[in-house]
Structure formats: structure tokens, C-alpha cells
């Protein structure tokens, strides 16, 4: 490994320092260092820069100070940026290479198409010793502009392997325990979580949350530090539980810590986020939602059969088309116009309802609650279209509270 750390022209001490900061990335770090040398840089997160104006401003701010940034006009174009940059860099010429590091560079695809190509040739545009570094989790092939551009140098960072993760995580030894003990703990933790999570940040978080539980038998004096098997037996079910709860953020990490201090039975009472699905709705809202569900999952031509009292004879073969049957729930909700929703609503609701303003406003509040989704554009006032956005379980629960047998009205279950 020491061989890798030798790069011509670089102080070995510095290389070592970097390697300590970034364990298991020695190869890539060394390569980058050898390419770049001293780093004078601007780091820009592309999530944060919703407009290119913000992006330009941040770059100028970190290279030339806030006076330069204020030279930009209110909504600057790329050429404004280039102009200001040139002006500034002629005043303070670069002694070394300047770097612009763009995090989450894949988001640049959504901005102006020319921006990415321009950034890749920024050196030529501003005539300065500047380099752009794009950081992304997506392969370059996926965001090459179709107009073509200057190809960047690619440097691939492979995923951490399990042993690398083990090595990195083991570095954060708890001050009052031995390194070997902590390493054993990390080993057990990875045994449970490695199959579902490779995120270093998340793993470190989980390690911190569960360590106190791991140490419990030790504190009680039942087990020695070296007795890994017993420790494993103690912690394993606990970690499994953590995987189903705190890892999925069903319970928050704070609640998880409280649960560890509580007795078993008490902890069982704490319900996860997804356990609360019950929604209390006004009476007519319930029926509106039921009507919306029926409109979304029944073909429109079957309405006559379900909602007309004397629908006459409809030939069975004609009515039940084979390929259509049972597929509606697999295909998901279909859009329906407002008229159809109201027609079904008036036929399912048991009493006579006046078409008051509050019925209509209930439809729009169902949309804000995201139980219905408006399919047509907001601006379309005439005959808006909706989709029902709730699950079968949800609507069955709602229908039960108003004594409405919804399954009898669903084409798929006929």
C-alpha cells in the first residue's frame, strides 16, 4: 500500500495525511492529488443552486469575494458570468489552478442544455487556469448532452467492499472500550445490515444507536469482552428489530433510544409511522372518495349496470370482456371527469344531497389531502379530471364505516 502512496513530486507526509482522512480511497486520492496538486477550489452543490444565477454567484463568491458576486446582473446569463469572471481574474490572476467542484452534477441535466457543455470548456471561455470537477452518482454516459461536448476525464470510485467498510467503521472506537471489541461489534452489525445498506453514513449512525445495547451484558458482568458468540446472541434479534424499525425510520432514532431504556412490553406499544393509516373524514367526503374509487377502477361503460336500478338486460358475454377482467387493479387508477364522479356519488349516497358549494369544496380538499389527484391542468376549469389515489385496503376501511359494500360495486371482483 505504501507503494501506491508514492507520487512523483509530492511530499510523502501530505499523502499520508490524506490517506488517513480517506481510508480505503488511497488509490483514487493519490491519483487526484497527482493530477491537481494544491487545491484552491469552489464547491457548489447543484441541489442548492436552483437557478444558474445562484450557481454563478457562489463560484464568484468563493474565488473573488462578495464584491465580484455583486457585479452580476439580476438574472445573469452565461456570458455575464464569463465577462465578470474574466474581468476579475485579470485583476487577480491565478497563481495555481482554480477548481470548481460540482456536487450532484446530474442535476445540471435539468438546467439549460448549453450550461453543461459550457462548463466543460470553461477554461477556454474565461482564459484562466480553471478546472471543473463534476461529482455524480450516475454514469457519464447518462448525461452526455446530445449536441456533443468536450469529454471529461473519468475517474471511477468503486463501492466500498465489506472489509473496507469494516475497516472504516472500526476506526470510530468508543473511547472506553478496546479496539478489538468494537471491531467485533462492527462485524456483527455488518452481518445484519450489509445486505440492505451500504451507506457509510447510515451504518455509522446505526452503529452509534445500538452500541449501548451491545454493551449491556458487559456492564451487567454476565459476559466477557472476548465472548463474541454470547454477545452476538444478545444483540442479533435487537439488530433485526432495528432493521425493521429505525432503519426504515418507522420510529425515529430518538424514540429508538428511549425504547432501549424501556421494558419490553412498553416498547411494544410504540407504533411505527406506517401503522397510523386511519383517516377520519366527513360523511360526504367518504362517499365522494368511494365514488372516485369506483370511477377510477371500473370501466365507464359498466356504470349503467352498477348504478341504474332498471338497467335492463346486458348480455353477460358482452359485459364481461375477458382481458379487461381483473386487470383494472393491476393497471392502477384511471382518470375520470368530474361529471362522472358526481353522477356516481349521487347514486351511491343514500340520502338526497343538494349540490351545494361545500360538496364541491370537499372535492378540492380531497385533492389537497392527496387522496384524489387532479390529472388535468390546474388552469382547466371546464370538466376537470381526477384520479383516485388511495389503496383498496384504505377504501374498504372507509366503506365499512358507512356500511357500504364496495366490493359488490367493483368490476374486478364480480
Amino acid at each position: 500500500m505504501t507503494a501506491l502512496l508514492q507520487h512523483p513530486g509530492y511530499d510523502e507526509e501530505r499523502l499520508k495525511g490524506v490517506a488517513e482522512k480517506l481510508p480505503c480511497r488511497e488509490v483514487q486520492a493519490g491519483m487526484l492529488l497527482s493530477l491537481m496538486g494544491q487545491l484552491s477550489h469552489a464547491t457548489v452543490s447543484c441541489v442548492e443552486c436552483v437557478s444558474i444565477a445562484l450557481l454563478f454567484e457562489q463560484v464568484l463568491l468563493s474565488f473573488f469575494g462578495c464584491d465580484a458576486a455583486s457585479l452580476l446582473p439580476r438574472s445573469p446569463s452565461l456570458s455575464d458570468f464569463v465577462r465578470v469572471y474574466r474581468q476579475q481574474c485579470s485583476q487577480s490572476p491565478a497563481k495555481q489552478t482554480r477548481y470548481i467542484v460540482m456536487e450532484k452534477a446530474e442535476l445540471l441535466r435539468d438546467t439549460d442544455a448549453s450550461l453543461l457543455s459550457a462548463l466543460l470548456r470553461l477554461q477556454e471561455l474565461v482564459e484562466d487556469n480553471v478546472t471543473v470537477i463534476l461529482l455524480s452518482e450516475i454514469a457519464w454516459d447518462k448525461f452526455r448532452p446530445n449536441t456533443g461536448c468536450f469529454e471529461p476525464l473519468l475517474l471511477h470510485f468503486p463501492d466500498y467492499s465489506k472489509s473496507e467498510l469494516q475497516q472504516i467503521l472500526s476506526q470510530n472506537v468508543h473511547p472506553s472500550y478496546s479496539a478489538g471489541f468494537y471491531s467485533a461489534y462492527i462485524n456483527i452489525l455488518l452481518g445484519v445490515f450489509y445486505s440492505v445498506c451500504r451507506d457509510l453514513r447510515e451504518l455509522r449512525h446505526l452503529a452509534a444507536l445500538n452500541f449501548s445495547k451491545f454493551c449491556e451484558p458487559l456492564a451487567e458482568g454476565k459476559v466477557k469482552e472476548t465472548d463474541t458468540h454470547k454477545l452476538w446472541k444478545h444483540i442479533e434479534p435487537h439488530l433485526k428489530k432495528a432493521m425493521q424499525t429505525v432503519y426504515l425510520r418507522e420510529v425515529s432514532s430518538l424514540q429508538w433510544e428511549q425504547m432501549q431504556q424501556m421494558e419490553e412490553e412498553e416498547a411494544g406499544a410504540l407504533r411505527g409511522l406506517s401503522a397510523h393509516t386511519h383517516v377520519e373524514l366527513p360523511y360526504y367526503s367518504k362517499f365522494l372518495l368511494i365514488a372516485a374509487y369506483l370511477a377510477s377502477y371500473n370501466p365507464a361503460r359498466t356504470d349503467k349496470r352498477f348504478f341504474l336500478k332498471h338497467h335492463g338486460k346486458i348480455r353477460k358475454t358482452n359485459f364481461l370482456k375477458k382481458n379487461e377482467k381483473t386487470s383494472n387493479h393491476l393497471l392502477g387508477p384511471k382518470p375520470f371527469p368530474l361529471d362522472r364522479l358526481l353522477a356516481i356519488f349521487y347514486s351511491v349516497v343514500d340520502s338526497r344531497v343538494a349540490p351545494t358549494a361545500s360538496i364541491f369544496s370537499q372535492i378540492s380538499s380531497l385533492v389537497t389531502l392527496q387522496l384524489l389527484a387532479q390529472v388535468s391542468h390546474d388552469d382547466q376549469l371546464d370538466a376537470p379530471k381526477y384520479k383516485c389515489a388511495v389503496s383498496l385496503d384504505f377504501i374498504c376501511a372507509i366503506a365499512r364505516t358507512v356500511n357500504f359494500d364496495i366490493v359488490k360495486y367493483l368490476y374486478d371482483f364480480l
Partner: protein
Amino acid sequence: MGEIRECLYKICLPELSGGFSGIKLLMSCFFVRTDVLQDELNRTILDSLLDFTRKCSSTRQNSDWTSQMRASEIPTAALMLGVNVPDHDMTFQSLSDMLKQSVSPHVASVQAKECGGKGFRDQSEIILCSPHSPRVHRSMHCSLGILCDWYTARTKKSPTGTPGKKRSSQVRDEQQQPPVVIIFKDLEAFNPRVLQDFILICSQYIDRLPLTFIFGIATSPSTIQHMLPHSVSSLLCIELFQSLSCTQHLATVIDKLILASRIHFKLNGKVMQVLIGVFLYHDFSVRNFIKGLQLALLEHFHSQPLSVLCCKKKQALFNVTQLSKPNLDRIRQLPSFKRYVEKQEAQEQVNLMTDDSHLKEVCQQLIKDLHKYHKNYYPILRCLHTLTSSLPRYPLGKQIRELYLICLAKNVWENEDYQSAMKLVKMLAKGEMVSLLQKCVEILQLSKSKKMKNALTLLEMNESRRAKRLSPFENLRNEALEFIDNLVKSHLSPPESQPLYEVCYYSSSATVRRHLNATPRTSIQAALSNPYYYLQNDSLKSEDGTVSNTAPDICIAYKLHLECGRLINLYDWLEAYSTVVSAAEGNDQDSENFGKVDEVKHARFIRAVSALEFLGFIKSTKQKTDHVARLTWGGC
């Protein structure tokens, strides 16, 4: 609320004849109560939220091993508020006020409609625009980075707190870094993309900027998981806060404002039914319920001159002596008073109808009776409710409001459900029975009326006797129940049976319904088919539902279109229209030009048709170019 109150005062005070301070008092008492009540209802949840934000900001400053290792999550409170969205505003208002007062001056509320598709920038700009906003360079774009710099500068500059922040100094001292609280009022309505980006950005600054989120959620907490992918929700440390359900909320409001003998203004059964119906069927909004109540109150004082007697007993008795001649005549006209008169002897009847001073005396007695009636009514109602509310299948309802509605409608003891409930009570186990009766005794003890005291001793006696001799339990039980039955019969008669009940009871359910439950379509149809209803022009008066020739163009066009089938030929329609209009202009039927379409008529017709199209009665159709399609049912 305050504005409404003032405005309402302005409207009604001139109407209230000459400074009857009792009414003012009642109204202000009524309004203040609703305010206080709502604050009280939210108190517990708001307190726990305040604790949460305080705790979060204090744990943040820990520096032991675990907290160093833990990924710094953004503390988030998920506040479950229920679907009664109109009520939320007030909760958030008092929440943000309380937070500003005792936790941190940096509180910002954002609403989905303010942060539309444009991205999170709007949101951060809103945060920056909060009262303590930093003065940044004009040309700079707002970003969280700038907010963060501002925050650091601010907390460094003034470790002891700037003048504006000194309201609660001991809290300030322990935390030199007050959290920045962001309240998302309606989480569901946010664009998920915007929210995700915003959270991602915030998480990058969390080590420098102590952010705390509060999510207002109307449906269920699983919404969070639907909106945010794991990569984002793992940045949050979410704690759940459940507020009172809106039905509990309503029950409290009814308990405090309606089932209280101290508030003399009452609603009759039908109005109650309308208000509760709006609540249960339409919006679940307690605020709207209270608004309905206030509307009824104003309508009552506005429309019923005798409402001057609807105030405290002393004041009412005094007001009786001040009644003017027309008002006394109004009393004689009251149906409840007429019924009362009919029951009197002949001489007394004459006296009442002619002698004003005698009438005043009797009225004073009747008002006293009415007050006594109310004083007894509510305790007995509550007693009956405690006895029956836990029975299987709830024959008299689970909530007291249901029982109240039954009692308002007619004699409750004649109700079949009442009889079955009483039978069920008889079947209760002994222990249960005794505890229920004890509860009744407590209720009766609270109300200190003279009659009640008698009842009380009787009930207590029953109990003590029961304790001594357990074997003849059945006898005693029957005795007790009979006693309660008697109480019900003597005190729970519907208010209509009381003379002068109109003074206190507001009964126009149609008015309330019309104001609270608007029916735009019905109104449009009424306006089109019967223009006189709105225009009040005598030339528009017509019998048997026809529209007169002189009606506005659109009414004529509407009337004609009603006679057509699904598709309407425009030319035929124009001809018919022109004939009607010509007749209205008084042209001679036999003349040559009668019914001819000239340019003016043509233009008027086109305008009427496009108005109808705008109102949604017709639309153009591709089936036939010179036809329009009807969008309403009927006709063919």
C-alpha cells in the same frame, strides 16, 4: 376573530333598541368564550410541541461519543391535526406565537401555495423574509448559505440576546443558539420534489444551523413515507404529535357553549341539526361550527325584538318592566304564550290580553320559570346521558349531542329508544349501576338548585340503603329508576312547551342553512327561471312559473333551451328568441317585420347564448356544427 366581532358589533348595535347592556354582555361573553375555549383545547398539544423544540435544541449541544457518531438528523415534529383544515390556521398561529415567545425568535411558517413548482428558493426566501431577516446585498440571491452566515453572525454578535429577545430571559441564558423553526402548514399539498430538495439542502447546513421542522399533517403519518424516499426521510428524526380529534373538540364546544345554563341564548332542535349536520357531513370544522353559532346569535338578536329578554335573570326581569306596547303585543302573539293563555281561566285570559301591567307581572314570573327550567334541564340531561351512554348499541346515542337533539325534538320519555334504554339500564350489573348513580349524584351536586337538592338527598338515601341491604336490590333499583324517570318527565320536556321560549330560542333553520350551505347552482337556476326573485321588478312578476317576455335576454334564452332536446339547433333557437322579444317590444303580430331577426336581436341572442355557455348549461359540439349540446338533464 376579533375583527369579526367588532364588525358584527357595528352592524347590530344600532338595531338593538336603546342600550340594553345585557345583550352586549352576552355577546362579548359568547365571543370571548369561544376564543379561550379554542386556546385551551390546543394547550396540551402546543405545550408538548414547545417541550420538543426546547429539548431538541438542548440535546444538539452534547458532545459525547454517541452524538458525534450519530448522523445529525433534523429534528422534526409531525403534528397530526385531522382533516378539518379550516381550523388549522388558528392552531398554527398560536403555535408560532408561543414559539416566538418562549423558544426562539426565528420561526417561519410556510404554506404549499406560497412555494409552488418554482422550487425551494421561494421557501428559503420566505424564511429570510421573516421579521428578523438579515440585511444582505441587494443583488445577492437568497440561499440557505446566506441564512446560515447571518445566523452565525447574529448569535456571535449578541450572546446575551438582543433587546427584542429579552421576554423570557432564563430560557435565553441556557441556550445561546435558539433553533430556527420552520413550520410546514400543509405537508400534503407540497410538491414532493420541492420538499425533498429543501430537506436535502437543510441537512447540509444542520451542523451550523440548528433547524427544527414542524410538519402539519391532515391525513395520516404514512404520508411522510409516501412523499419522501428513504434517502430523504433518513435525514429526519420524526416525532409524532396527535391533536384532539375534531369530534372531541366539538363535544367540548357543545358542552361549554350550548349545554350551559349561564348562556341564555339557545338553538332549537332544527338549527342544532343543521349546524351539526354541516359539521359531520361536510367539513369537520369546529371553527365553522362556532361561526354558525355566532350567525344564529346575531340573526336572533336582529330578527326577534323580544330578544331583549334573553339575558341574565335580573336584567331580564328589569327589561320586562321596560317593555313597550308593541313588544307587549308581540308577546301576546307568541304561539307559546297563546298556548299558555288558553290554559288559564276565562277571567285571567281577558286580563292577560288587555291589562298591560298584569301581563308584565305574569311575564316576569314566566321568565323566572324559564330560567329555572334551564337550570334544571342540563343537569338532568347529563344524568340521563351518563346512565345511557354506555349501554349496548347506544339507544340514546353515544354523544350527549345526540341525546340533546332527541330531547329537543319531543318528549323524550315517549320515545321508543328511551323505553328500551331504561330496560337496558335495569339489566345492568349492580356494581356498574352504583357507579353510574354515583356519577349522577356528582353531576347533581355541581348544580346547586333547590329542587336538585331534594333530588340529591333522595338519590343518596337510595344508595346508602342499598349498601346496607343487598338482598332486595331489585326493589331499590326499580325505585331509583322510577325516580330518575320522574325527574326526566318533569324536567326534560322540550323547550317548545315552555311559555316565552321564543325569547331565548333561535329557530329559523332555513336561514342558517341558506347562509352556511350555499347552493350556487340552485341560485343560478332560480335567477334564470324566476328573475323576479332577485330583481324584484314588478314587470317580471309572472304566475305559473312562466317567464314574462320582458325578462332579461338570458332568461328567455334559458327558458327556450329548456324545451329542447340534447342537441339544440341554433337557428331555431334564434327564431324562437326573436319571436318572444318582438312580442315584448309590442310589435304588431300581423305586421311583416314581426319576428324578423335584425342585427341587434342577433347580437343580443349571441350574448345570451355565450353567457349560458359560460355558466355551463350548453357547449359547442362537433357532431353538428350549427348545434350546441345541452349539459343539463331534462327536456327530451
